[in-house]
């Protein structure tokens, strides 16, 4: 094979063919359907307007001529690029067109109000969706962090030890801790409201804590807490009358996604996608390696302008 390639004549033919191919790309002899490029008054007005907005003054005639020339060259390149199908497999072009299509053809009809029967039917068919929220009832003793985090933690820890196995309303409770900015006790409180007052970490921790005992220290965005949980309501199915607003909202959402599905269905009917199953398994195995290939190659560059 190698010997064959080293033959001068073959080399010559190969290089010749390559040059020809490059030339064909660079100087395509293709008939152009519409060779006119019109630069009309609207276009020129826009160029002047855009320039003026950017630079705060009207362009000179020479500057405008340059803008027009550049625009014409761009337009020629743009048309050539389209003819050569350079827009294919270009992620930026693709994303933009997808966005435009989605935007233009997404169903956005004003959905009519459902009647009572529709709501009932929807409720009956989706009972599992309409449950009471997760809710928790608890009291807590708060220890402000202040300037000494370790000290606050120690105070909370020793308080927790002293409170072990004591009752929720033990006389000791009132003597411990600092003034909390929000409430000391919460009754059937929702997750969002607890997160608002205590932050993420504490809210998650509440799910893990044993019931009917003083437990802590548990950390929040505000300090340390000793917590007594009196009850945790797991979500339960709601009565129709209580759930009505949620049923209505869900019904509306469903109508909208149904409309979207109709549209996607029409789209799917026009295409026959095939996916290479073997490639899926293979690529998943090599995830790390593939990830490294795609990572942006940026130098850490600091302290310079």
């Amino acid at each position, binding site marked *: 094979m190698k010997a064959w390639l080293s033959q001068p004549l073959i080399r010559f033919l190969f290089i010749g063919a390559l040059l020809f191919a490059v030339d064909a790309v660079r100087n395509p002899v293709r008939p152009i359907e519409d060779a006119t490029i019109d630069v009309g008054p609207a276009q020129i007005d*826009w160029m002047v307007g855009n320039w003026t*907005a*950017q630079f705060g003054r009207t362009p000179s005639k020479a500057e405008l001529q340059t803008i027009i020339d550049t625009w014409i060259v761009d337009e020629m390149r743009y048309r050539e690029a389209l003819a050569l199908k350079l827009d294919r497999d270009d992620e930026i072009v693709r994303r933009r067109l997808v966005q435009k299509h989605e935007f233009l053809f997404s169903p*956005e009809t004003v959905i009519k109000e459902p009647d009572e029967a529709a709501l009932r039917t929807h409720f009956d068919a989706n009972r599992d969706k309409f449950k009471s929220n997760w809710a928790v009832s608890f009291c807590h003793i708060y220890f402000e962090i202040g300037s000494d985090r370790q000290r606050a933690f120690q105070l909370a820890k020793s308080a927790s030890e002293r409170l072990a196995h004591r009752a929720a309303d033990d006389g000791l409770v009132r003597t411990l801790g600092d003034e909390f*900015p929000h409430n000391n006790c919460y009754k059937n409180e929702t997750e969002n409201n607890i997160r*608002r007052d205590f932050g993420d970490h504490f809210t998650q921790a509440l799910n893990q804590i044993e019931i009917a005992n003083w437990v802590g220290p548990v950390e*929040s965005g505000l300090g340390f807490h000793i917590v007594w949980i009196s009850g945790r309501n797991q979500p339960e199915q709601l009565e129709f009358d209580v759930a009505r607003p949620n049923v209505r909202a869900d019904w509306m959402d469903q109508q909208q996604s149904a409309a979207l599905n109709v549209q996607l269905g029409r789209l799917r009917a026009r295409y026959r996608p095939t996916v290479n199953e073997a490639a899926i398994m293979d690529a998943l195995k090599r995830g790390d390696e593939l990830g490294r290939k795609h990572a942006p190659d940026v130098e850490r560059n600091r302290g310079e302008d």
Partner: protein
Amino acid sequence: MNSKALAIAILGVVISITPAIGQTSNENTRALFGDLHLHTAYSFDAFTFKTTATPDDAYKFAKGAAMRHPAGGTVQLKRPLDFLAVTDHSEYMGVMRAMADPNSPLSRVPIAARVTNPDAAVSLGAFFEMARAMRNQKVADVLGDDSVWRAVVNDAWNNVIATANRHYVPGKFTTFIAYEWTSTPDGRHMHRNVIYRGDSAPPPFTAQDSQDPEDLWNFIESQRRKGNYALVIPHNSNLSDGLAYSENDYKGQKITADYARRRSFYERVAEITQIKGTSETHPSLSPTDEFANFEIVDLIRSSGIKVQNFGGSYLRDALRRGLVMYENEGTNPYKYGFIGSSDSHTGMSPVEENNYFGGSGVTDGDPQTRLDCKYCNGGDTRKNGSAGLAAVWAKENTREAIFDALARRESYATSGPRILIRFFAGYDYDGVQPGKSDWVAAGYRRGVPMGGELPVSRNGQSPTFLVWAAKDAESANLDRIQVIKVWTKSGQSFEKVFDVALSGGRKVDPKTGKAPSVGNSVDVIDATYKNNIGATVLTARWRDPEFDAGINAAYYARAIEIPTPRWSTYDAARTKRTMVPSLPATIQERAFTSPIWYDVPPQP
């Protein structure tokens, strides 16, 4: 009775803009956080920034859903909002979207091709041209026949109403029917949002109908008589070049008593901070306020005008001007409470500093583009702040409760974090200690909350101010609470900043009148900070040492966080790039309460 006389009659009898009159028991108020200024693809400018989100998407996002960003990727709020008003520009509402629709006659107007051009630089140019046409009342030149685009606007408006009503969940998530009235005389912002209280609203009164705010109030007044209550909320006064809080009206005439009454009746609160800058005060107006230089923007992007007149552009100055007018004429047009909001043009509120995704679609949507200032023609978008929040003290999360809190100005602004702050003033607060049990009930019963008016002092007694602030559980500790006092004497106005609560046992130096700095725990390279300085809660009982019972004054409180990284610092760390030297690496986020006024009626 003509409409003006009727309005005065109504004002005389009913001093509230809401139908819920005389409800004064507010002991169980809680803070709700939301955004009353957000644009979607229905806004002509947002569309040219390649925003595709509709009002429906915006409400879903505010409730906690993930959404695709026009610049790519998916974003989601770590904590959902309690309320949201989608406020698309009423001018051209939905029109740009129609331009992208080949079936609409609007797709054939000459500018349509540029509006829908995939290159953001081109569509941004089209936006500038549309904005110019609107400013100069030459809409017909770009859009052609009125009837075509007006029909599109009506469709869009009906959708705005239906969507707001569909997403309203009383008690949990509140929506408002709303829009932006985009008056921009000579390129200077006189923008206002109109927020309705109920579940229906007439087609918008737009800046194409009139650029004069008095005409807007006339319209709101006529709606009020039909039971459609609305508030008008000015914003971006920092970009008004002195027009927003001028001594003159839109026509250039000196403000009359009638004008002042109408303005303070329909405009109860103003945005003091949002993406396009903070409008509290400018360093040149408040040279002794060491915290004045906060997220200042002074270039108007849509018109390229550099602000020259800072007086009349900022709210502290407006409070001062209002007091002077009250002293002279007995009426105060500038009795504004405060809110923050986003003014984001992506359908998504970027309120989290460490989760900033820009406000103008693809033109500032990703860190590279933002830091490179790729689309900064018109104005440097790196100076934009991450969005603010509107906070209200309301009894419940409903349209009525939130609207009424705004109407009584029991609202405050934050620059993003959910800082809690309460502020009361009264003459009977002996033994009331902020933070101790039942102090809030006593605060309401024996005095007035933020936004209120103190009765005239008897026997020269000095009022006591109660202020309490708690850090956001997910944000930084508090550095201090300040009370800002503005007052007038003999037609002159003054201002002074008092440090009333300082973390870490610091004291104000009596010689300089300043407190030592709280320090700075920010690691700029990694964009992290430690909460090992500052306080969780700060409180104060404060008396004005210079109180004079014969002098008009207004007081508002400002709670300030310890320094944390600015969004641009998070961006630089995330993309492993150098920070932009002209931008501050750290900021001190803050909350601004609505003022409490002390008015001395002029002697006849």
